[in-house]
């Protein structure tokens, strides 16, 4: 078995190693440990009253010596950090320069001969209306042609919400009390409440409009869901959780979110299955331009909107009180 050198930490090689790994330099670590140790020492030593004067003197002397020692260390640490920062800035600028230079070599913006203007775009624009039944081509693209990507994207949102739940969920009563910030803010703010009373219904209506018309006009599940979520947050902020909990409590949100996602996944998988196996899927596309048209897209927008609204509200509730 090889033996380890005791002074390895202070060798040049080890410092380079740490530099590469982005760890704290040796000097700062040592200093932190030392200061903590001396603090404990002080606490322990305080027992003997008669020694205090003597010890204070000695401590002053020690602290002076420490300061002298620290000064040199600090300079080295500062130098180390400065080099680190300079290198980081240099690296950033290099990457930026490389990317900027590259952009100037890319196909010019808006040129009709660009490689991106090919048969893919052509079909989306020319046949999109006829094949997907959506007046809004973008919605048709993301929810029908490339529905699998969007399903993944919706799950990104779901998994992000779940991760935040892992991080912020308060389980015990003590945690819940600590996580809640209700006591820090003014209660029953008249201006906020009056404004919320007027605004919230409008926001909800507009959000629902954006979701329902996702296949007809710009917007769709993601943007409309964000609006509804914002409305819910405004309401909760103005009137407190006691009021919102009567409707939007954890149970309801969980059911809404999970059933929306499950319906989304199952309807899309039906669509994938029939499409790939060449089976007629019996999804009526309707008359383009009508509210109830474009087949699954209308429903998918609603599912996505529900999911996004619930996620927004969940984030808010988690940050405010550590749970739904």
């Amino acid at each position, binding site marked *: 078995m*090889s033996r380890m050198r005791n002074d390895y930490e202070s060798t040049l090689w080890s410092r380079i190693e740490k530099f590469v790994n982005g760890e704290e330099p040796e000097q700062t670590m040592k200093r932190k440990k030392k200061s903590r140790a001396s603090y404990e020492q002080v606490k322990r030593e305080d027992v003997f009253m008669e020694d205090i004067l003597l010890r204070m003197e000695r401590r002053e002397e020690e602290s002076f010596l420490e300061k002298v020692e620290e000064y040199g260390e600090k300079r080295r640490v500062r130098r180390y950090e400065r080099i680190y920062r300079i290198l980081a800035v240099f690296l950033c600028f290099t990457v930026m320069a490389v990317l900027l230079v590259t952009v100037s070599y890319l196909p010019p913006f808006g040129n009709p001969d660009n490689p991106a203007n090919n048969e893919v775009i052509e079909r989306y624009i020319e046949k999109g209306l006829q094949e997907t039944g959506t007046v809004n081509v973008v919605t048709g693209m993301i929810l029908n042609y490339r529905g699998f990507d969007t399903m993944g994207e919706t799950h990104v949102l779901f998994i992000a919400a779940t991760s935040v739940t892992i991080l912020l969920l308060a389980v015990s009563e003590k945690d819940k009390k600590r996580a809640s910030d209700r006591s820090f803010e003014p209660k029953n703010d008249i201006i906020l409440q009056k404004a919320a009373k007027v605004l919230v219904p409008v926001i909800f209506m507009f959000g629902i409009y954006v979701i329902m018309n996702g296949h007809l006009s710009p917007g769709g599940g993601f943007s409309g869901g964000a609006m509804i979520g914002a409305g819910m947050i405004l309401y909760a902020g103005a009137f407190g959780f006691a009021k919102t909990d009567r409707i939007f409590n954890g149970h309801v949100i969980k059911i809404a979110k999970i059933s929306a996602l499950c319906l989304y996944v199952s309807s899309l998988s039906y669509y994938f299955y029939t499409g790939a196996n060449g089976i007629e899927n019996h999804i009526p596309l309707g008359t383009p331009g009508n509210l109830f048209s474009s087949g699954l897209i209308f429903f998918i927008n609603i599912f996505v909107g529900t999911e996004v609204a619930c996620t927004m509200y969940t984030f808010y509730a988690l940050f405010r009180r550590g749970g739904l």
Partner: protein
Amino acid sequence: MDFVCNFPPFSIIFCLACGIISSALNGRAAKRLSIALVSLVGVMSACVLAYTVKTGEAFIYVMGKFPAPWGNELRVGTLEGLMALFFSIIMLLSILGGLRALETDVEEARMNLYFVMIDLMMSSLLALIYTNDLFTAYVFVEINTIAACALIMIRANGHTMVAATKYMIMSLLGSGLLLIGICMIYDLTGHLLMSNIKEAIGVLAATGQYEIPLTVVIGLVCIGLAIKSALYPFSSWLPDAYGYSTASSSAVLSSLVSKGYIFLLVKVFCRVIGFDVMVGHKITNILFLFGILGMIMGSLNAIRQHDVRRLIAFSSIAQIGYIYMGIGIGNNAGLVAAIFHIMSHAASKSMLFICAAGLSEVSGGSKNFTDLKGAGYRNPAAGIGFTVGAFSMVGIPLFAGFTSKVYFAEAALTGGEAKMEIAMVTLAISTILNAIYFIRAVISIYTPRNEHFQNAAYRPAASMVFSIVLFISLNLLLGTFSYPIANAIGSGLFMFG
């Protein structure tokens, strides 16, 4: 189209659906659902593998009514089936092996969320394996990143929080570079579908048009994926992330998450940009160099560790260096060796993490070598598993690691003189370094000195013993019957492009 062809998209969608359902279940039910799901995915992947071996060609699955450049599609060949089968086996064994550690590390209220993450991780890995669309790959890379962060931080203590933050920063940097690369590829070719991009880039490379952006694209994609899979200079997030998270998470992260990204890189090499274009732009030489550096530096760092989990983590850096060296050799044999090493490393490393958790269970929860003395006697199953894993990592014949080293050496022989010499010398040095720290670890767990932790009532969890036994047999299988597997990888790579 045969019904089996539906299995790849089904397995992805089942994983997503189980993830959603698990978020409403309690911990026990979510655990059972997750185990059942991963087993089901394994069975389905085995069917897919058998089907592709039988038909001898890759099949395309259109996701929806519209065919590929307009819609999304999956492309499944032998290699994809093999990787999916292998990943699901490793996932299942990693979960089973770490169940008891999971109960102590994760609070009951968060237990179901852990399995949500496992399910979604599985779905993203499957999607990365099967997809034939670069943007779909990116979407599932996002899911993978977030799930990996959550798997690290769910064991709530200070170390894992720092580790998860580090991981997130580095991983998002990698994702960002990858995304910029994908955007530029779209700008240059007008496609997101891998096969179409390859055609377009072949034309670009032949005519010499857009030479500079193409080089930058290759650099961005390779660096992005290298950061995410912890190639040496970008691996500073790795030791903390693997060293402090719960045992199952470490096993999954080390053997599947980083390997998923490497598989995506192989895909980029073979199916998106084209192997010849990659070699022509000399990116293989750079990856080769960093791989060599990683092999040495990872091992040197591992020698200095007193903590068994961190030792295994640093050894991962070295092993990822091996894989990049294999890719960097720049020929087909090198790729086969790299993919084989993905498998053998995954089989050994996840077992090492599980066994290390089992060993510290009988040593008062400590991971330090002084406390682990004699742990091999106190928990024989974990001791034997650890020894087998260590032997495999060092490269002792019969075990998986040896075979992959042989493949690396064979590939290096055909990779040009300079690369051959460097690769051979580094393989030898790295083997010695591996031996230094792994044999030390094995000796210290079999040193009967520490009587402090004697606990006659200790019984290892049955699931852990089961998973260790299966891991050992998987290891021996890879080590002794490597020929058909390497053959399958070779023919899979042939179908790939």
